[in-house]
């Protein structure tokens, strides 16, 4: 049965009325029209559906919407704090990371969460944070360059 579920989405309090076990991914995509978060596997293997839950990167395909009640969800649409793009998005564009682009929202959300927690990550920390996000086009080396650029490094 549909129930109201309230949470904060991209800085704004919202209430959705939906069956509480619906994964957050499909509430975002189909109920709220935020299609930047992608469906790739439905089992948490690919990372295309990565969003932030209270700042932490999560697989939105695995979270029943009821489980985010009262929490703060940020999607790719709300990542930028202002009209300027988020530094990770700017680095992504500067390094021409995206190819087909389908996984990139998830990649960017994973990278942004990493840099929020670890502003100057080591190669090992980047690998640990990014290895849950699959990319069929093989953009991984560019992902590494962009994260280092966003972290203030040279991207080398």
């Amino acid at each position, binding site marked *: 049965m*549909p129930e109201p579920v309230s949470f904060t*989405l*991209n800085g*704004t309090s*919202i209430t*959705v*009325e*939906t069956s509480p076990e619906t*994964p957050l991914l*499909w*509430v975002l*995509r*189909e*109920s*709220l*029209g935020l*299609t*930047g*978060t*992608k*469906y*790739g*596997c*439905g*089992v948490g*293997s*690919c990372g*295309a559906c990565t969003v932030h839950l209270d700042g932490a990167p999560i697989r939105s395909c695995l979270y029943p919407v009821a489980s985010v009640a009262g929490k703060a969800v940020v999607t790719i*649409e*709300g990542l*930028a704090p202002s*009209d300027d793009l988020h530094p990770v*998005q700017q680095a*992504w*564009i500067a390094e*021409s990371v*995206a*190819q*087909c*682009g*389908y*996984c*990139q929202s998830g990649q*960017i959300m994973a990278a942004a969460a990493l840099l929020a927690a670890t502003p100057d990550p080591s190669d090992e920390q980047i*690998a*640990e944070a*990014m*290895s*849950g996000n*699959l*990319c*069929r*086009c*093989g*953009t*991984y*080396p*560019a*992902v*590494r360059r962009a994260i280092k650029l966003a972290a203030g490094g040279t991207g080398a």
Partner: protein
Amino acid sequence: MTAFTLSRRTLLGATIAGAFSVGIRFSEPELIREATAAEPVPFGAWITVHPDNTIEIALHKSEMGQGVSTALPMLVAEELDADWDTITVRDAYGRPEYGTFGMQFTFGSMSVSTSWLPLRTAGAAVRAVLLEAAAARWEVPVDTLRTERSMVLHDATGNAATYGELAADAALLPLPAQPALKDPADFTLIGTNVPRRDSVAKSTGTASYGIDVVVPDMLVAVPLRPAAFGAVPESWDESVALAIPGVVAVKPLPAPGAGMDSGLAVIATGFWAASQGRDALAPTVVWTAGTALADDAAITAQLEALLAEPAPLAFEVGNPEAAIQRTKTRVEATYTTPFLAHVTMEPMSAVAHVRADAVEIWTGTQAQGFIFPLVEQLTGLPRTAIVLHQQYLGTGMGRRVETDVVADAINLSSMMQAPVKVIWPREEDLRHDFYRPATAHAITVGLDPSGRPFTWNHRLAGESNITRYAFFSATGPTGDTIDPMMVSGLTDPFRYPVPHRRIESAVASSGVPVGFWRGVGETNNAFVVESMINELAEAAGTDPLQYRLDLLADDPRSVAVLSLARDESGWDTPPPAGIGRGVAFTDFGGSRVATVIEATIVDTAPRILKATVAVDCGLVVNPVIAQQQISGATITGLSAALLEQVVIAEGGVQQRSLAEYPLLRYDQAPEITVVFVPSAEPPTGLGEPATVTAPPALTAALWAVDGLRRRSLPLR
């Protein structure tokens, strides 16, 4: 029903982000008003000049990450001297000019090479008539005019006019068929790192893929097809699916084409309800028996049986049967490769709205030209009643050459009399793909006294695409029907000079559907040939890179690529102990690629450390995009070599999720260096070649570590 509250800020954020993706800038409000006062002026198939001086360029190829939505407009804009910052790009179809070999499609790594002259010519022709129009208007000689950023300028008088202001006059003039093209030395766009037009949209979540499309009153359907290929549903209990809130209907789903599987579809108000309905329905379905071979053991046995008998002759030169008897040193080997799935990141998806007199389709497709006949056949409506809204492709890989999901959407929209979005759950995508064929190869190569290959006798067996695509078939030298793609890279042109060569190819019939996977036949054949070349180098006692240089000495471009790979990879400096280096080479449609891989073995597991890829693809239109293609293709090839294998069990694909079909991940990917040989030759393809060199370079690197030849993929 779902109710929701959406903040103004969220909507505003999406709108602002969306504006970035359009890429149009109106700097003057006046220009917008003018735009509404006059009509856009089309010039042929490719260019429309708008009164506000934006130049609209037709894109006849699919953007699947390979950068055509940037690289192809660059060709037009270069010769037109269009202002890159104000061009717009429109997906286009329906004119013969958009076809390649008579059909509009995007595969085979030929978008830039086949567009190189037509698109530049189109830009130059329109520039020529704009110049003529300005010359007439100002009564000055045309050769006193110049063009810059979508304007014609007459420096002596200071006269200036935008293309938009001249377009109506210019449209009255005939377009020259063979306008002068620029000297490459004068290029200002081609050869530069023009930023990808899709970068902002793809970094802000605003790029629209087929799965993202929303049409008013749309339903969402998911298919349920059999676990075993060829099985059809006999009975089922739809009430369990209809009991799920949001589920609207359960329908029999026809086979989308010959040799493809029928099944059932659950139609609902959204994906989650449809997916839950599918899960409830699945255990109630009674399926007939499947029609494919039972498992990998049976498939392997069939391939081995085919290899044991003479097979249809695909190619022969010299007298290989006699020549092999004259060689003292022979290398014999058997190689096998597995079925591979495409695993496009975006699962198969399409939206269709079939009405009595018109059809609209929203999807990302590599096969625009195949969709129209399909829809005509399914709906009985004429071509003129069909509208295709091309979307970004969430990976192509060859999977979106197929139109099966479009057929599903058309069929279900017709049944439901409503717009329907079809989304294949990942399980369906994995289990009802058109797989890269599994193959087996038996090869005997005899060397001449100097260690060069003298005779190459090669028999292979595997599934063929011509079972479904008969028009691709060819006839062998003794009249047999041959699949040219199955033997591509083995017949002619062959990369290495071998005086006596015989290629036999046997078509297997496992019942597993096959298709086109990034690199197609060469994904199998380059692995086998390049691995054999490495084995021959060992038999000849020669360094494998030097062995190739010696064999390819007559082709300076191949020599240059191998030499560049040698220098950039530090080939002549031995790697540290425990690290191996391997090389492989291809000439793929004219693009020469040499890949050097450094790898090691940790415990028993291969670990890829570094890749160096040297490329001659002619003139590089956009270096950043070219680098992306080579780097990405290398990772695709390494993923296949190391990890990927479709497992057949009980007549179908065993894997149901990405957890069971591993792909290369970030922490398994090497550093990659890509270098290009400077060239002014016409461009050749970049999408596929580096996919096929990575696997044999990797196995050669591992051989250098432990001395074991790896003749069967994947390595895990």
